[in-house]
């Protein structure tokens, strides 16, 4: 196990550098700070020299990238063109997005797994068919359309929650955006739970448990769920990273001041440093969560052994 984790961590190193370099390279094409200057600033050679030095603009791209990554490892994510610290911005906004993502995952667990189990137990009945149909529609409908419709329905027409902003705090303000953010994956969790439980129900140990005369609830909980939730749990493991990336649209529509919103406006304003900083953090979250998932596999299912 220890050796496996170390090997996976070693494999991550080229992926980490590759992905962040790719982002850095693309952003350096659009985000040259000198092109974003006002005419007055452009007349100021001292300021241009300062920026050139600050962002190492005289160096070739690969050197610039290495200097940037070196800074990141010492915890310095750089400053924006207007002198704000990127770490400060991220620290301020990260908790908001994390709250949103965790709330979304709670929805996925509560609704996705519960309905999935109920559907599996009623296989072929109307509840099963209906929940699968709803799940497919949730997958097919684009996130932002669902966001508009729910915002209009619950925020404006019914007035149950504020249509945007987070002034009501958790959980009220986060319910609607978290549900929208969760919707696609929720449908996926539902189907995964159902399919996995159906497969488990067919296995020999379930029949044995039944033959021994154990109560059905106990069989479901101790034998069925325990064995069929492995793929679901591992899916939820990678979700955290995906949800944070997907928050761009949800945060935009519901006006939630998290990193998604910051990211989008930074791309618009060509604030390369912020985009690369947030991008790097998201890449790290993604890589670590996919490692976590692989390790979780072994913990949840003792039959899986890593050499």
């Amino acid at each position, binding site marked *: 196990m220890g050796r496996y984790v170390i090997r996976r961590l070693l*494999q991550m190193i*080229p*992926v*980490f550098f*590759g*992905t962040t370099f*790719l*982002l850095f390279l*693309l*952003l350096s*094409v*659009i985000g040259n700070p000198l092109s974003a200057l006002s005419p007055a600033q452009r007349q100021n050679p001292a300021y241009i020299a300062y920026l050139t030095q600050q962002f190492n603009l005289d160096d070739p791209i690969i050197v610039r990238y290495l200097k940037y990554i070196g800074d990141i490892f010492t915890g310095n994510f750089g400053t924006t063109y207007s002198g704000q610290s990127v770490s400060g911005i991220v620290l301020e906004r990260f908790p908001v997005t994390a709250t949103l993502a965790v709330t979304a995952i709670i929805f996925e667990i509560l609704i996705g797994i519960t309905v999935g189990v109920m559907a599996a137990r009623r296989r072929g009945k109307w509840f099963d068919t209906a929940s699968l149909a709803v799940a*497919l*529609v949730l*997958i*097919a*409908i*684009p*996130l*932002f*359309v669902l966001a*508009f*419709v729910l915002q*209009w329905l619950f925020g*404006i027409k019914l007035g149950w929650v504020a249509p945007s902003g987070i002034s009501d705090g958790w959980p009220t303000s986060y319910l609607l955006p978290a549900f929208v953010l969760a919707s696609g994956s929720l449908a996926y969790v539902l189907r995964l739970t159902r399919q996995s439980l159906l497969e488990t129900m067919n296995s020999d140990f379930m029949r044995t448990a039944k033959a021994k005369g154990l109560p059905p609830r106990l069989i479901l909980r101790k034998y069925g769920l325990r064995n069929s939730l492995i793929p679901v749990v591992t899916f939820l493991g990678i979700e955290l*990273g*995906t949800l*944070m*990336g*997907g928050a*761009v*649209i949800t945060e935009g529509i519901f006006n939630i001041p998290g990193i998604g919103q910051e*990211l*989008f406006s930074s*791309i618009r304003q060509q604030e390369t440093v912020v*985009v690369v900083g*947030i*991008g790097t953090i*998201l*890449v790290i979250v*993604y*890589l670590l969560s996919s490692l976590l998932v692989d390790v979780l596999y072994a913990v949840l299912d003792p039959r899986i052994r890593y050499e």
Partner: protein
Amino acid sequence: MSDVQLDVATSIGDDPVASRTLLSDAWYDLKRSKVFWFSAALLVFVALIVLFPGLIADKAKTSSLTGGCNLTNALLGPSSQFVLGTDQQGCDVWALSVYGARPSVAVGVIAAVGTTVIGASLGLIAGFYGGKTDSILSRIFDIFLGVPYIIGAIVLLSVITLPGIWGVTLAITLLSWPVAARMVRAKTIEARGQDYVLAARALGADNRRIMLRHILPNAIGPSIVVAVISLGLFIGAEATLSYLGLGIRPPDFSWGTMISDAQNTFFAAPWTLFVPAGLLTITVLAFVLLGEAVSDALDPKLRK
């Protein structure tokens, strides 16, 4: 397959020999799948409006250049003149939605073909040669998968500016191909050691022939299913990117741009959102359902 089924297959005219191949087995199952016929019916409708939009809508009503849109008609409800109402510019929402189908579906089709071709070729090479080739290619798959999707798309589309649908299509393809690559790679590794491959090698087939004639047909199945499902999801992705102002740009329009425009008029005129969004959802649903039906049919474990 039981004898009874074979008899049925023969009696309805199928070639009894061919009916034993994987594909005809799958087709046998598909013909009996309600989901398949439902999605096929939806897709015929979609294909109709993509290929012949002129049959059911008037192109003139989609542009002010042709005099079809008049600001005095802005945001009118459904009427005999405008079946599903008008948008902010006074254009006919139904005509726009019908003519907006082609770019939306085109993005999905081209991106799905692109990701499958790129992914299958690289996955096949990585899985077949193994060793260093595999290590390097697999890391490249990981790098592209590691880029957060929406950030990657936004950044790519800020860099590449191609006309019409090509920018979005390229961005979606570049970010999605590793999924197919990983899948084909895994299947190739599985097939590489099989007897039929060894037999082909013993008969003197070279690597190229083994890869293309023997491994590829056996390794591509699951990624084709994924391609069909992703085709639908790519149509949704185009809409999302157009909503962010990065997809298709005026004067071109698609379901994505229409939905994006509708966010301001939605409260006053809900049809401006619901018509394109509804057609889009139906189309995505049709492709997802088709992919599922095919995947069920190809999976021998689920066969009753």
